[in-house]
């Protein structure tokens, strides 16, 4: 799996107007994509936890959030490196940057809340409620941000139009491979973490 990444990293020729820096998109977009998947998964597992009260779902919601947070940070870093090179500064508060910032805040708040509650069931229930409640506000953000933040920095249009207009067959292949590989890695780690939690639970029960 990692071999595929290295391969997709080393082979593509720099083919865009932006130059070498454009390579970062092979990583930045899949990372951002995983942020969204992880956040949604965390919310779905939170709902399932509240419905079933099965602690396993809370473990999964937590793992999804942890991985999501990691990818969120990665996406922010790669994004702001690119922003520095093309737009001249690391941070511009354009809609994409603002929304990933708020996503980081939500994750941060979620972990702060989990850290502040000792009893497992209580922590699970309250963290689930918060995850769902925070998710509800996302549509509002999507509606509000583009209206309020001046789109001086044509974030998505540059990315999208460049990808669309200049994406040759090789680029497209590498991009989608990268997307698939990132997604696979995410689910692979997620699965490992899930099984680790499962084993811990089994050990806890066998002590009785």
């Amino acid at each position, binding site marked *: 799996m990692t071999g595929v990444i290295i391969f997709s990293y080393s082979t593509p020729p720099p083919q865009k107007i932006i130059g070498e820096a454009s390579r970062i998109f092979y990583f930045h977009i899949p990372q951002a994509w995983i942020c969204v998947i992880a956040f949604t998964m965390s919310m779905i597992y939170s709902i399932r936890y509240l419905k079933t009260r099965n602690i396993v779902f809370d473990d999964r919601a937590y793992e999804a959030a942890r991985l999501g947070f990691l990818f969120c940070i990665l996406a922010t870093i790669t994004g702001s490196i690119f922003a520095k090179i093309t737009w001249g500064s690391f941070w511009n508060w354009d809609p994409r940057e603002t929304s990933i910032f708020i996503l980081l805040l939500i994750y941060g708040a979620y972990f702060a809340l989990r850290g502040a509650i000792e009893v497992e069931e209580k922590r699970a229930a309250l963290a689930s409620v918060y995850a769902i409640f925070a998710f509800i506000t996302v549509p509002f953000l999507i509606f*509000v941000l583009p209206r*309020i933040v001046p789109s001086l920095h044509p974030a998505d249009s540059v990315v999208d139009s460049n990808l669309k207009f200049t994406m040759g067959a090789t680029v497209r292949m590498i991009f989608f491979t990268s997307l698939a590989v990132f997604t696979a890695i995410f689910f692979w780690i997620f699965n490992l973490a899930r099984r680790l939690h499962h084993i811990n639970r089994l050990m806890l029960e066998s002590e009785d």
Partner: protein
Amino acid sequence: MTSPKTNAGLISKSFAVFAKDIRLELRSRYALNAILMFGITTLAVVSFSLGQSNLPPHLMAALFWVVMFFSAVAGLAQVFIREEETGTILALKLAAAAEPVYLGKLLFNFFLLTVMVTVITPLFFIFTDAQVVGIAAFSAVLILGVIGLCSATTLVAAIIAKASVKGALFAVLSFPILVPLLLTLVQATQKLFDNGAFDAVMTEMQFLLAYAVVMTTGSILLFKYVWQE
């Protein structure tokens, strides 16, 4: 001895919770003092550092809502923390279902913020040279803002009351949820400081209303899971 399961029951129970909290608040004035002192202090600091400089409307609007947000945070969490810390929460849980408690607390927070807004807003205009032409529109935005703030933070207050570290957590958990609300409020206020009237802020007002409705509904659905813990 059986209790009627009607809506009238829900309203009178919610109102009982509200009236009880008002009575407690009037006897201690804990939350109100915190909110007003916080608001007046931040306002004074802001006004002092501004001096005579004339700020553009968008900075003025942002300052206004920053003062409001931090004052609200100082007092809104108290509704549930107080029950938890005095140990009265058990009696409340044994006597009432989740909905009347949530609605009563929501109403109480609405009361607190209404007092806050009616005190701080005139002071804001005295301390700064912000001006508003569309007073009716401005009041409407204020009311919608207050409703939005309560609808989003009352559930968060219930959540953090169960956590071991309460103080800072409330602001940390509330802020990300309030971002869309605060941004919209700032934008609407900016237009009104810039001589706008009702027609200028129609979209924002619709948005504020939608936010309040969605967050209140979400809170009512989710609150029972917090209440059970």
